């Protein structure tokens, strides 16, 4: 039986990017805020000491910063007819654990989505009409670029993003991404330095008439102090970045950029190693009354609150809503219900290039060090007659090359023995790869639900993922990879290995942790779960924030938009909800 605690103003579930931003914004209004985190408190100085942070076995292979699957995992299957089985080791993606969440071990690539994304269904229907593939269930977000832009800007300033504007107040700026939406301000920091591979790629792309730009990076290019007064150090390009915590305060994270300021505020409390089991609802189902959590001794507690903000990783956002009975569970057969619908991913493609005469020093780099082009992304090219929509962000980002996992050899090389060893030595320094991180469009059959067979240590059902790559996305993958091959050819590699994404979706190798949907935002409660303020339809004091709100995923990394949505929700709560608690949008 849960012991009841005194009520508080605001409960925030999850202290990654989204939860920390909202908790901080609301604490500034004077409200009492308690943040719950299922993992440990993480702190740069103690957790990511420079003397031992550079450990590939510990962080990359043994996944120390990731959620232990023993604590919580998902089950997976490709289609309705299969029995979903648990993901016992994280393969395809890497959910995080502890304060900072997956925002500790992320790469740091911080794109904004484009203006047309927020009205994608309307926009593509206007442009292509009946050509739009019937399998897709794309939707508008119920918001606009103009409403999003100030919040993107706030997140970029918070995270100290390094980059080059391509569209400043409607004027195209040389050297930036000409396909981005009009931004009100330049990035807070200039672009980072570049290694050889992205430099070579940018030259090749430019020679073909494309417009290369520095990948927008939450790895600081110089010392920087954000609006909360927290200071970042310059990135040193150590190459222990994606899947690692940063020991230099250079990679933006909630533990670097938000929590050091937030935890010092007297009206904020963090409860760590405290897992939220459900959101409690009143008898009418129209008001959240608080949450139930369990501490590490197994004791359950009820924490009542006036406002409940659920801002965990996408999987836990959706699972908590299913476990708490919020919204109707989505059913793909009847096409009814909203909780769990429009689950999508990212379609990761690449072209690997082997050279004889080059030295890339691939161990120098970082998750968001690189150069990219956007000519083949989203709807930046005409899709008439192509039979698909969508595209990807093409770029070279040398994330580092710690050699347990990063030791490229050409096809046909044995996996062991003398020939393996020679090929490993011959190719380690002279191989590079061009990636194309492409869109993932939602369909009726890809969704999230509670698993009927497998349970977590508290006896609650695991979340079940039913997903496979839609035909649309597989055609797109082939098309954009062919375009990348055209660029790669002009760089004259000895050998090239194009890898367009193929089905089925599998948990066997890492693809991307860019997972979206399941509790999506929109203008209509019939096909969305939250309104444009991230407020749950019909439960006005409950907010669910994160990539769970994306109705589909464009060809960009999601964190910039997760951060912007967190600022957007906090702004709506402060500006509208606190003045007049209740539904902020009536339908």
């Amino acid at each position, binding site marked *: 039986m849960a012991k009841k605690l005194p009520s508080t103003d605001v409960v925030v579930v999850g202290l990654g990017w989204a939860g920390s931003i909202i908790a901080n914004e609301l604490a500034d209004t004077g409200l009492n805020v308690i943040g719950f985190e299922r993992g440990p408190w993480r702190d740069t100085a103690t957790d990511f000491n420079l003397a031992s942070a550079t450990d590939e076995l510990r962080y990359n292979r043994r996944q120390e910063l990731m959620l232990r699957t023993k604590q919580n995992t998902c089950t997976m299957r490709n289609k309705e007819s299969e029995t979903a089985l648990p993901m016992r080791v994280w393969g395809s993606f890497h959910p995080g654990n502890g304060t900072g969440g997956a925002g500790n071990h992320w790469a740091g690539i911080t794109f904004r989505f484009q203006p047309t994304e927020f009205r994608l269904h309307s926009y593509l229907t206007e442009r292509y009409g009946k050509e739009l593939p019937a399998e897709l269930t794309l939707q508008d977000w119920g918001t606009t670029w103009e409403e999003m832009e100030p919040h993107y800007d706030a997140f970029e300033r918070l995270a100290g993003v390094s980059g080059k504007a391509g569209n400043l107040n409607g004027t195209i700026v040389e050297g930036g991404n000409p396909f981005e939406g009009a931004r009100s301000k330049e990035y807070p920091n200039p672009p980072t330095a570049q290694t050889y591979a992205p430099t070579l790629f940018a030259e090749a792309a430019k020679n073909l008439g494309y417009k290369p730009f520095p990948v927008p990076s939450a790895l600081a290019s110089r010392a920087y102090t954000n609006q909360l007064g927290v200071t970042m150090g310059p990135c040193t390009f150590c190459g222990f970045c994606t899947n690692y915590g940063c020991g230099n305060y250079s990679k933006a994270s909630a533990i670097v950029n938000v929590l050091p300021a937030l935890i010092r505020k007297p009206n904020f409390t963090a*409860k760590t190693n405290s897992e939220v089991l459900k959101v409690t609802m009143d008898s009418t189902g129209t008001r959240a009354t608080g949450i139930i959590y369990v501490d590490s001794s197994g004791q359950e507690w009820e924490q009542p609150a006036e406002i409940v903000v659920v801002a965990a990783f996408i999987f836990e956002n959706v699972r908590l809503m299913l476990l708490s009975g919020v919204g109707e569970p989505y059913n793909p057969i009847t096409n009814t219900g909203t909780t769990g619908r429009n689950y999508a991913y990212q379609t990761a493609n690449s072209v690997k290039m082997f050279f004889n005469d080059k030295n890339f020093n691939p161990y120098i780099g970082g998750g968001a060090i690189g150069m990219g082009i956007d000519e083949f992304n989203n709807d930046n090219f005409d899709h008439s007659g192509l039979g698909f929509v969508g595209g990807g962000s093409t770029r070279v980002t040398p994330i580092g090359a710690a050699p347990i996992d990063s030791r490229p050899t050409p096809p046909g090389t044995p996996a062991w*023995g003398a020939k393996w060893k020679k090929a490993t030595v011959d190719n380690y320094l002279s191989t590079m790869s061009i990636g194309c991180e492409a869109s993932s469009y939602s369909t009726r059959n890809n969704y999230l639900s509670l698993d009927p067979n497998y349970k977590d240590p508290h006896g609650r059902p695991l979340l079940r993922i039913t997903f496979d790559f839609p035909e649309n996305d597989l055609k797109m993958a082939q098309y954009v990879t062919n375009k990348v091959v055209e660029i790669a050819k002009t760089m004259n590699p000895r050998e090239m290995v194009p890898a367009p994404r193929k089905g*089925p979706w599998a948990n066997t190798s890492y693809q991307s942790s860019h997972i979206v949907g399941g509790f999506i935002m929109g203008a209509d409660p019939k096909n969305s779960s939250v309104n444009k303020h991230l407020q749950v339809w019909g439960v006005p004091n409950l907010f669910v924030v994160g990539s769970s709100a994306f109705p589909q995923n464009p060809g960009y990394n999601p964190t910039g938009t997760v951060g912007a949505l967190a600022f957007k929700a906090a702004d709506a709560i402060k500006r509208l909800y606190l003045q007049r608690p209740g539904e902020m949008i009536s339908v």
Partner: protein
Amino acid sequence: MTEQSKGLTRRQLLKTSATTLAAGAAASAQAATVIGTPKWLPFDHNGPMHYDSPGWQFFTAEEAAEVEAIVEQLIPADELSVSGKDAGCAVFIDRQLVGDYGDFGRLYMEGPFTPGTPAQADQSPLVPRERYRIGLAGLSKYCQATFQKNFSALAPEQRDKVLTDLEKGAITLEGIEAKAFFQQVLDNTMEGFFADPIYGGNRDMVSWKMIGFPGARYDYRDYIGLHNQKLNLTPISIIGSSAWNKKG
């Protein structure tokens, strides 16, 4: 002072902090209420154990001889490097198996266990310790039945043939799928060869020197602009380096 004795000094330090830390880490796994400036404990959560104590901790002497023979074949000695055995890969695997990886303590190991589709990845109920114990016993049984010898007593060509057959699943082992056993051993061998030497493999940073990986360095600001050049940086391990200890 020689480089070795300085390295030992640093190892002592790491050992001490790892012990101190056991208490700190245990404490931090408890639910906690954090208000105000967090307490900072130097080296809290820090420092992998350094597995430099002698002897086998998981393998029996017989098993160890077989594992050493396997890793010697997977990574043979040649002009590029010493063998997987001499690089410490078997020691690495032994220490990993007694540690928290050995029983998949972090992983979801609840049933029902069913093989599933290839996309659903590893669904075996066996944890690494069992995979090795069962796999090595099965391998010995196969080699005895086929050659009347243990794997370690086979000629190099015969060893290669057996490993190739395991890799392809062309032979059957009792209690474990041959391909899965092979992949487990290969993955751990490569981890041992390329991981930081602090874990017992990659002795003297042999693999890093071989491929040109500078190891646990943390700052390339002076090098990032040197495009297409060989940098010849001496690798550094978490264990430490004489370069770190030089005064003045």
